[in-house]
């Protein structure tokens, strides 16, 4: 037994913490044989052939300048390796954990099935406690925990959606006792200590957000894929492919190229012609019975008609007999003496009756003409309805008739429409001033007095007389000095005809017409024909 140096020396007055000592002590307590790996570098001068390889070889110090090898104490100056290979990790049995790569990038609590054992089926054993549902208490606890977490989320979301929120509650004030390092009368008015009250700065609840977050934050990288725990998909066999082949639909209307199929081919294709027509025999029965009923009805009608005919013949015979008797009687009378004058009196009475009626009618017409001019007699009405005639004759349309009405007398005649407008070549429609006899021009295009009084005032004539716009040029032959009232009116300029040549020519043109009698007769004939 060698003497320990600590036994000789006196106990240290101040105790210094030393990790090695502590470890040694612990080891001594646990009775574990110390395994010391001595990785210290050989002492100076004995380093020939020795090369520092690991970080431990450097100890706490730096590189060894006498060893001519690239050295990186503390990894300094070493290039970072760009490889993202994972470090090999071992499991409890000392085997390599190959699923480390499957777990890489996943969270701590993520379950990743990656072993072959996870693919092997297991039997369901009802007695195994791991197959039992968790008991009420743990479920309730779990529920409560989840509920709190979700509630927090919900309240946060709701608050964020609110435009205005209540002022946040401030934390209670903190009191800090503070002893300044510079003590003295000069500092802090001689106090040794100060107590500081710290309060949170108040926030304006209505303050708009200071920073705009209108940028969409890109989504983070997705979690790494889970290992695929199934065999690769089988290749699709030809049979399976054929099973999945769905035939294209065939249209009755378009062929595969998209052209319309003609109607006859379409009908031939749809097989309607191939079907036999089956008609229920009841149709035949019905038709037969209908036919029989019809025939019977006809027979009955015929017999009835025949009996009626017979009866009518009998009646006729009876009447003839009666007439014959009367004639015989009359002959007898003529041969004998007149019996009385009843019949003549009757005829007189009838005539009086008619006379009275006629008289009454005339009186009524008169009264109507006097009292209600709109219900005038027919003759007058017809005279007014004769519109086209008037136009043909150059008379204005005075009637108020709106609908077209034609007088039948004008048709198929050589006068009126036919002759009144003259032939197509002759221009004689607008050759006379319109309503030359009346003062139409005076009234046309002028406001009615009373209506426009407030617009123009009383002196409308004055206004009209003032000649504000005088034309430089007038129509040739027009009398500029004369004032015109109303629209411009044109008249046919009759050329002078000193020799009567024009007249002669005109007569010669129309000379072939023979006479009025002929046309008259033909017209009468026409009319008669139409009456029939």
């Amino acid at each position, binding site marked *: 037994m060698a003497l320990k140096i600590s036994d000789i020396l006196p106990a240290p007055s101040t105790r210094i913490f030393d990790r090695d000592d502590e470890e040694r002590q612990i080891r001594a307590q646990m009775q574990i044989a110390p395994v010391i790996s001595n990785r210290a570098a050989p002492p100076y001068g004995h380093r020939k052939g020795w090369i520092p390889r690991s970080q431990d070889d450097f100890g706490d110090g730096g590189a060894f300048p006498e060893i001519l090898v690239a050295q990186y104490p503390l990894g300094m100056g070493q290039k970072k390796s760009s490889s993202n290979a994972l470090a090999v990790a071992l499991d409890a049995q000392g085997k390599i954990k190959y699923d480390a790569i499957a777990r890489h990038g996943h*969270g701590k*609590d*993520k*379950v*990743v*099935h990656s072993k072959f054992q*996870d*693919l*092997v*089926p*297991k*039997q*369901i*054993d*009802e*007695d*195994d*406690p*791991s*197959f*039992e*549902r*968790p008991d009420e208490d*743990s*479920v*309730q606890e*779990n*529920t409560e*925990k*989840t*509920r709190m*977490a*979700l509630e927090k*989320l*919900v309240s946060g*979301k*709701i608050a964020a*959606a609110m435009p205005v929120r209540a002022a946040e509650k401030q934390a209670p004030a903190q009191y800090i006792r503070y002893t300044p390092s510079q003590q003295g009368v000069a500092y802090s008015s001689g106090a040794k200590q100060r107590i500081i009250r710290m309060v949170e700065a108040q926030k304006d609840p209505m303050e708009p957000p200071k920073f705009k977050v209108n940028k969409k934050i890109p989504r983070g990288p*997705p*979690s790494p894929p*889970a*290992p*695929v*725990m*199934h*065999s690769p*998909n089988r290749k699709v066999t030809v049979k399976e492919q054929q099973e999945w082949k769905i035939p294209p639909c065939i249209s009755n209307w378009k062929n595969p190229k998209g052209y319309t199929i003609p109607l006859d081919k379409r009908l031939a294709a749809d097989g309607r012609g191939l079907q036999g027509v089956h008609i229920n025999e009841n149709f035949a029965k019905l038709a037969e019975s209908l036919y029989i009923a019809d025939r019977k009805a006809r027979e009955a009608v015929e017999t009835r008609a025949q009996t009626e005919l017979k009866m009518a013949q009998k009646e006729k015979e009876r009447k003839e007999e009666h007439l014959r008797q009367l004639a015989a009687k009359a002959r007898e009378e003529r041969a004998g003496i007149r019996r009385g004058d009843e019949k003549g009196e009757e005829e007189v009475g009838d005539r009086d009756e008619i006379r009275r009626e006629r008289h009454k009618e005339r009186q009524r017409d008169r009264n109507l003409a006097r009292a209600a001019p709109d219900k005038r007699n027919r003759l007058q009405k017809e005279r007014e309805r004769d519109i086209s005639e008037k136009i043909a004759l150059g008379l204005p349309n005075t009637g108020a008739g709106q609908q077209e009405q034609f007088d039948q007398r004008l048709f198929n005649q050589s006068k009126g429409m036919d002759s009144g407008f003259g032939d197509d070549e002759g221009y004689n429609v607008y050759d006379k001033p319109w309503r030359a006899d009346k003062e139409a021009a005076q009234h046309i295009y002028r406001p009615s007095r009373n209506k426009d009084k407030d617009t123009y005032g009383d002196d409308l004539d004055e206004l009209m007389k003032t000649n504000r716009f005088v034309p430089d040029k007038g129509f040739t032959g027009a009398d500029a000095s004369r004032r015109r009232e109303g629209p411009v009116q044109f008249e046919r300029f009759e050329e002078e005809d000193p020799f009567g040549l024009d007249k002669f020519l005109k007569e010669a043109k129309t000379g072939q017409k023979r006479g009025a009698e002929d046309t008259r007769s033909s017209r009468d004939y026409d009319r008669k024909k139409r009456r029939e």
Partner: protein
Amino acid sequence: MEDVQKHSVHTLVFRSLKRTHDMFLSDQGNLPVRDDRSEWFRRQCKINAEYSVVKDLPKEPVKKHISQADNPYNKWPGQDTQGADTSREMMAYETSRIPPPADSNKALVTIGSQQALVPKKAPTMPKPDWHPPWKLYRVISGHLGWVRCIAVEPGNEWFVTGAGDRVIKIWDLASGTLKLSLTGHISAVRGVCVSPRQPYLFSCGEDKKVMCWDLEQNKVIRNYHGHLSAVYSIDIHPTIDIIASCGRDGTCRIWDMRTKACVHTLTGHTNTVAEVKCQAAEPQILTGSHDCTVRLWDLAAGKSRVTLTNHKKSVRALCIHPTQYTFASGSPDNIKQWKFPDGNFLQNLSGHNAIINSLALNSDNVLVSAADNGSMYFWDWKTGYNFQRMQAAVQPGSIDSEAGIFAMTFDHSNTRLITAEADKTIKIYKEDDTATEETHPLNWRPDIVKKKRY
């Protein structure tokens, strides 16, 4: 005194032999009657010889002992002797590896249990429980479009359906008569659910709307606005006042029921999310998507906790086991069973090769999967044994291709199965009361099914 006919000794011996033969012929080949005493000795020897290392297992929970105590297999003489305790623990160890078998197959399963001790052997399928077959019981026709979703009221008096004709209809469960029609959606209704704690009905549809109906006034009282595309499924959280909806925009949104605020938008799926389910225990939200994954979400953090990538086709159906801490997901390739909370894979139920639209599970451990072609498969949950297959008949006037089931649910008594179909009808199924295990035997042999790995 009759004189006995004299026979030769040879004849007598032969007769005796024949009688003996007749007597024991009936139970020839049977195992001898088990002698409990010797059996016990044999076990003790075996325990001491082979399992002395693992004889003293750590104490199981007390509950387990109680469940073991009424096991008839445990009752043999000498139970109160000092060796009984170890034997009971031994039994617990053994029965934890095999499900308690029926009596008729005890011998077989005992062999199976010894095989199960050898880890190299592939596990055989344990004997499934017998379930009575289901049969069609009622057809309700009333919708003018595909019936897309269905939900049963918590009081089990009526159920509600939503259809492609934009109408939500409420039907009496007992009589099947229409009680109410609710109009308000402007496109097909894809999801309905009835709240157990409020007089509310929630619906979602292809018009991007999530609506809250007050069933006291039969009016829409809230609209949850936020989905960017059609909403395909909706579910209510059983204990917190939130609803989860998911849809074609690839997100699942968590709505606060009262404030209409979108608490979380669970993003991560890369395709349409077809189904969402909520539960009170962790994980509280699970979603199945057309990107072939199932995700389990951490509701408080709004992050995905587990991503299950085992499916090869899109996952359109999910269902949570009512009593076990497990769930199932349905996809055209397989139906998979999983364990909560980490989504450990349990087993595959394969065989239903159609687009599975819906899964339903009752507390009797009957899992039903319904597909787009109208086929329904009934499974035993524990073993994954398919005990019945059914093809829904279309209602008269529909073509055969209109046989398709979109949604399905058990009522709360677990005795009626209500399906929503593409032939515009609602069909109700019930168990066949007349069926027994003899009339509808299980077609099961322990070695016929080898589990597929994935």
